[in-house]
């Protein structure tokens, strides 16, 4: 297709297989894995087709920081051998991308920062190792906001990512590269992380499915830390079914992560089809605030009508402390970040300034040069709220309000099975539109942060468009109810085709 389809004569010279590979990216992970197992195409062919799409889109989208072409082709050839020998894993030969925050042995891992511009991971993150063991083939490392601090992917040292639905608009953040890549079908699925909405908000803004599991469900080992009591790894894919498949392979106990939870991982695929009849859904009243775009609200209500048609009942639920999520977050997250980012000292790894006069000069200039403006802002905010005389007033106070927010969720889940609402107040905005004022940018995550503070699983599914740009429906569940929220999302996607829409130019 694409350019060549215009010259009719070239069609005959191209084999049917080549034409088939031109549109192979329209398949889901589930379909690709089945096709590989049935030997309809090889992983090497598949990986070549995706690598070609990645290269063709890089100038327009800037979704990748590193493309690992030769490693990917080697891994694909190995996957083909495994499949031929009948020992391929559930994702054998399926191409994926990793957010550049996951350590990948022998591959540069920048976290979107100049600080780690030359950092080569000495080991694989557990998530990376598990997906590798399941047979997935990594095509490269995806762009992101610097140290995952941002909601528009504009803080990346490696340049902003653009939204494939309209390249004048942001893809959301911080997992903007992962979301844009999946939306543009440059990979069928990608890893991502969510500290305050960094999986769900870009999923909504790019029209794809994004899943943040319960805190502790997926190992954080080898994930570059931002805010350790909030960070959680998850998935971006085009459907709940694919997200369930990837999550099943990523989740599980890891002795290397002291906050990893040792409970069995259910088969998320097994529960996908369960009927929604009798399910009690709570619409979060506080999310229907004055900040919510009214057209966006209509898309949410239309989505709820679909769920009601499937037999679920919907009622409004109030979580009165939830609007305090953003101020709580902007104390807790910077505090934890200022502590976590203390490790970047210009001594053991990362950027070092030229000709340091003494040790203090080495620390200060290495960090001043290595970190971007938003990272410095958060490190300083955190330093301030943790400093002597302010700790109780800011940090402890925020942790107490965090407890109140968590209690609101707990009360709500006594009455309903899942909570729903919009993922973000508006669809994607233009590049540069919100960079001048940090508070305006922070308010993008007003509906997503609550789930992080309480450690709850939450996902976003595409539920329509506002002004030609996608928006998402958020579904939040009680701790470890991943299967339930994936079930709601999957049943919704069986009734709607929003998740199958792909942006013009990347179809």
């Amino acid at each position: 297709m694409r350019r060549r389809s215009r010259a009719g004569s070239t069609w005959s010279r191209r084999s049917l297989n080549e034409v088939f590979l031109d549109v192979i990216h329209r398949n889901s992970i589930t379909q690709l894995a089945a096709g590989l197992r049935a030997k309809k195409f090889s992983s090497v062919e598949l990986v070549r087709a995706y690598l070609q799409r990645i290269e063709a889109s890089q100038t327009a989208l800037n979704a990748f920081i590193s493309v690992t072409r030769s490693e990917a082709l080697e891994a694909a050839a190995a996957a083909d051998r495994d499949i031929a020998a009948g020992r391929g894993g559930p994702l054998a030969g399926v191409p994926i991308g990793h957010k550049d925050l996951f350590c990948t042995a022998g591959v540069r891992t920048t976290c979107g920062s100049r600080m780690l511009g030359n950092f080569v991971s000495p080991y694989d993150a557990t998530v990376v190792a598990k997906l590798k063991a399941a047979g997935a083939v990594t095509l490269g490392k995806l762009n992101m906001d610097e140290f995952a601090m941002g909601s528009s992917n504009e803080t990346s040292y490696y340049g902003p990512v653009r939204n494939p639905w309209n390249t004048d608009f942001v893809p959301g953040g911080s997992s903007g590269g992962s979301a844009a890549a999946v939306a543009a079908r440059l990979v069928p699925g990608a890893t991502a992380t969510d500290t305050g909405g960094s999986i769900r908000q870009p999923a909504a803004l790019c029209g794809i499915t994004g899943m943040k599991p319960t805190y502790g469900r997926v190992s954080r080992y080898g994930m570059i830390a931002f805010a350790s009591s909030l960070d959680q790894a998850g998935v971006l894919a085009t459907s709940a079914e694919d997200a369930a498949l990837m999550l099943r392979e990523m989740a599980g106990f890891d002795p290397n992560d002291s906050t990893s939870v040792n409970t069995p991982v259910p088969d998320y695929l097994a529960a996908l089809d369960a009927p929604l009849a009798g399910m009690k859904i709570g619409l979060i009243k506080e999310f229907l605030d004055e900040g919510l775009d009214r057209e966006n609200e209509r898309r949410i209500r239309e989505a709820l009508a679909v769920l009601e048609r499937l037999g679920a009942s919907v009622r409004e639920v109030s979580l009165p402390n939830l609007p305090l999520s953003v101020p709580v977050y902007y104390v807790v997250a910077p505090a934890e970040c200022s502590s976590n980012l203390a490790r970047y000292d210009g001594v053991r790894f990362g950027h070092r300034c030229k000709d340091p006069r003494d040790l203090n000069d080495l620390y200060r200039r290495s960090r001043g040069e290595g970190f971007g403006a938003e990272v410095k802002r958060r490190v300083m905010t955190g330093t301030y709220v943790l400093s002597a005389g302010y700790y109780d007033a800011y940090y402890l106070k925020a942790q107490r309000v965090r407890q109140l927010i968590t209690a609101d969720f707990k009360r709500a889940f006594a009455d309903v099975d899942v909570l729903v609402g919009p993922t973000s107040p508006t669809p994607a905005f233009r590049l540069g539109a919100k960079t001048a004022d940090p508070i305006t940018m922070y308010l993008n995550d007003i509906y997503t942060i609550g789930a992080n503070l309480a450690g709850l699983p939450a996902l976003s599914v595409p539920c329509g468009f506002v002004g030609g740009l996608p928006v998402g429906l958020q579904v939040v569940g009680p701790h470890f109810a991943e299967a339930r929220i994936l079930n709601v999302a999957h049943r919704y996607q069986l009734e709607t085709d929003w998740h199958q829409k792909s942006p013009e130019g990347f179809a």
Partner: protein
Amino acid sequence: MSLTRAQIESIAYLARLELEPAEIPVYQESLSRILDFVGQLDRIDTGDVAPMAHPLEGLTQRLRPDAVTEQDRHEVYQANAPQVAGGLYLVPKVVE
């Protein structure tokens, strides 16, 4: 609330961040606004609510057996270091 230039310089020093002179007023403005914004928490009556440090409370810190699990991989790790010699990280002279 409005942070002074000296306060920003002191925070930056505590955080070991060298700032360009032009950056200081920018952070004065934005940090002051952020502190005003988070200051709304003051109005919330939290009474004797316990501070929440971790989303899965009730979970206790796991201990591992006291056994050697790490191998000596210092060469791999030090490949990322800006300056090493003889297996040691080099820094500017600290003790005269």
